[in-house]
């Protein structure tokens, strides 16, 4: 049976297509303003890769912030449930999922078969989300892709004390004006986001394996600094950003 999952997030729309247990194709595109169009485009890209048509999809599940905007979805399921299920597919011994997306972050305690046992979320504050890193990359005129490696290369980390993204940006400008090397400022920012997320994660039991999902999982600097704070090894699957869409497609079978 062919199933599909579409995860419409704050910044990107992701799609995954399965045939039974086999992952056939995935797609990630920028969501933009028109979420329905982005959902359609992501799904069409994945289908094209899999050489399938819409009519061949038996069931479609929408998830993410824009889940109600996924056209023709048979069901909508929250991204919490989908990320747990998707992380379980990518890493069957997962017990804790840390998901950092564009505008929220969450920690999920996962049980057998990828079921959610408990979860905590931060969706009220940009600090601790991908948005934080975007704002800072812009302020430092640095490509976001380079942020993680630069952070890990710095010998020291500048202190970023503000918990607010807006005021942290002011601190960054102050550091730069004071001559603090850019790499150390970037390292300090990564330390700040890791500290903020770790505080949230500590509200649920942290048990191995700890799997990191969401777009920010591609940032190795955040992943390594989270490991430091949590004192747990963190697994970053290759398809980390697609965990939600993968989970949605698998749930579509049920």
């Amino acid at each position, binding site marked *: 049976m062919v199933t599909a999952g579409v995860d419409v997030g704050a910044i990107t729309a992701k799609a995954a297509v399965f045939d039974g247990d086999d992952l056939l194709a995935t797609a990630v595109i920028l969501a933009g303003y028109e979420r329905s169009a982005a959902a359609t485009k992501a799904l069409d890209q994945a289908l094209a890769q899999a050489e399938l048509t819409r009519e061949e999809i038996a069931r479609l599940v929408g998830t993410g*912030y824009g889940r109600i905007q996924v056209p023709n979805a048979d069901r909508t399921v*929250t991204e*919490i*449930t989908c990320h747990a299920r998707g992380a379980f597919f990518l890493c069957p011994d997962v017990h804790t999922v840390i998901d950092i997306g564009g505008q929220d972050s969450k920690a999920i305690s996962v049980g057998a078969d990828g079921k*959610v046992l408990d979860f905590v979320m931060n*969706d*009220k504050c940009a600090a601790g989300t991908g948005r934080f890193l975007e704002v800072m990359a812009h302020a430092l005129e640095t490509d976001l892709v380079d942020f993680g490696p630069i952070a890990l290369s710095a010998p020291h980390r500048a202190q970023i004390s503000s918990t607010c993204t807006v005021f942290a940006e002011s601190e960054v400008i102050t550091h730069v004006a004071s001559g603090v090397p850019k790499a150390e400022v970037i390292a300090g920012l990564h330390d700040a986001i890791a500290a903020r997320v770790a505080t949230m994660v500590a509200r649920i039991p942290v048990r191995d394996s700890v799997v990191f999902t969401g777009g920010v999982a591609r940032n190795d600097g955040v992943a390594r600094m989270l490991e430091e704070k949590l004192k747990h090894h963190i697994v970053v699957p290759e398809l980390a950003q697609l965990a939600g869409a993968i989970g949605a497609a698998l749930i579509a079978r049920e």
Partner: protein
Amino acid sequence: MQTVTHTLQAAIRDFPSPLGFITAYIPEELFHAAGFTPLFIFPTSQDRGFARAHLPSFTCWIVGSVLDQALAGELDGLAAMALAKTCDTTQGLADLWPWNVPGIPCLHFGMPLRLDGPAAHTYLLAELRSLQQRIEALTGQAISDGALNESIALFNRARSLVRRLYTRAGSTFQPDGWTASALYERVRAAFEMPKEAYIDHLTPVLDNDSIVIARSKATQQSPASDRRCLPRVLLVGPALGDLALFEVLDQAGVHVVGDLFDLGERYFGVDAAEDAEPLGSLADRLLALLPTPTKHHRLGARTDHLLSLAQERHADGVVFARQKFCDPHGFDYVQMRHALDRIGLPHLLLELEQASQTGQLRTRVEAFREMITH
């Protein structure tokens, strides 16, 4: 069922001697016997900014909104405002009120902090006697024991109707349209109109629904909706929650089977004795209520009650609807959460602010429902 709703301003305009109050520890019967119509001042989502000039930023919106409405003139017409020392913030409001809302007299009394202490009843009775004298001075009329006993009987009748509402809500079979939103609109209505009108309105509705349910069970046909497939949840929080939250719960597909709201089941669960000295009877009732987190009582009283209710109602989960900056409810949450973890009952913590961010609430509530659905 058609619900009866009044805007607060219409209630102030239409009902005799309207009295505003914001805590469960007000002896409404005493005010009613003096000719007042007690009306609960529910917080609104609109922040006009007036209260912010007087209150610290960490003040809960339950209190902040009342002051905001008062300073905006929206409570003009109230004959009086009744406040009891429920917490530090309500005490602060009682201090601010005469300075900032001089047109509405404030009648304030001290509810004891320790409810199970040997002096609690003596202290509270003295406070209620003092309150009675101040009410009589304001109205110019004495409150007789006879009038007070009649008020007690009336309020007991109204409370018994609300207990029937809760029994209906916990039932697996209900007439179509009975949802968390419907339940709490009806419970809330008890605080938005004279008790006489509330009783007249609700009694035939409850009787009719009973007929509908019995008929549906006998014929196995609609309009009774079978809610057996929905996960059963209890709600915990201050005041009476937030109507937007109930809509989110309904849309997510959970069945609310009871609560520990300060103005919810625990408030309606205890009557005042009708065959005793009336003021003492009111004091006994206030002391017998399941305590709010702001009061000292046997350690674990609220937690034990929650666990007992969860077992009795076959709850699948508990939703804590905490008002931002209501720290006493936050203190209790830790003990309650650990107790629920020990028995393996899932729970969800929501933090509500003055304006409900329904998108964020919806994600959490839906995820919780997915978590507890078997």
